[in-house]
């Protein structure tokens, strides 16, 4: 009997370990010349503190919508690219992946750009928070005020995606 296959969603917020291969399989298509993957890992140090583990919290329904919005933005900017991303929540140990992004395209420049744009936008607008548990205490980390309509933030993410080394992907 065949094993039932659970379809991999294009975006997800999950407490399960992330599976980069599933995302690669999802975005890949015949004729692609490139697939770029990014995994963000829990680092063992931050701002001079020795990190023990991280705890991620999310406003899940809005986080999923924000991720959907980001992959749609990337598809608009790089029509040849297909992007998928999953973010993990809950307790994560050092070295575990908190986010995985896969971006496939006919050419590497678009795949790199779409992948980089996606991580920059995730940091800007996805309602997920990490609490750092370090030797001696714990603290919620706070980055950007989330405003999906902030054009300056979008432009910044685009500029980073289109930096010098990757200019071929951008107008």
């Amino acid at each position: 009997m065949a094993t039932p296959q659970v379809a991999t969603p294009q975006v997800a917020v999950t407490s399960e370990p992330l599976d980069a291969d599933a995302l690669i399989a999802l975005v890949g298509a015949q004729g692609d010349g490139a697939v770029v993957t990014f995994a963000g890992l829990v680092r063992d140090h931050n701002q001079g503190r020795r990190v023990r583990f991280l705890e991620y919290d999310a406003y899940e329904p809005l986080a999923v919508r924000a991720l959907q919005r980001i992959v749609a933005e990337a598809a608009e900017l790089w029509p040849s690219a297909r992007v998928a991303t999953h973010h993990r929540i809950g307790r994560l140990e050092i070295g575990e992946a908190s986010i995985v992004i896969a971006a496939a395209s006919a050419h590497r420049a678009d795949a790199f750009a779409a992948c980089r744009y996606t991580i920059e936008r995730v940091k800007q607008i996805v309602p997920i928070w990490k609490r750092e548990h370090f030797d001696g205490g714990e603290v919620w980390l706070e980055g950007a005020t989330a405003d999906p309509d902030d054009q300056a933030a979008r432009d910044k993410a685009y500029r980073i995606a289109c930096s010098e080394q990757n200019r071929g992907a951008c107008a």
Partner: protein
Amino acid sequence: MRVTVRLFARLSDLAGTGELIREVPPGATAREVWNDLVLEWPGLGDYEKTISVAVNAEYARMNVAVRDGDEVAFMPPVSGGWDTCSTSS
């Protein structure tokens, strides 16, 4: 009328809960809901300029009117993804 308030990360620590029911007058805006919370938990006032708000799990503005039964979420600056601290300055 009643709304469900959701608070996240440090906001929920400050209020001691991540979810509460509030009575608000008809026509109240998200800002009025927020101001009411700050009266009860003054520490939340530190987030006056940096919070985001969502109504029924869609990003919204503080001047939006809320309706009976709405879920109104207040969120501190986000830190998902990876390596937030070194790039947020």
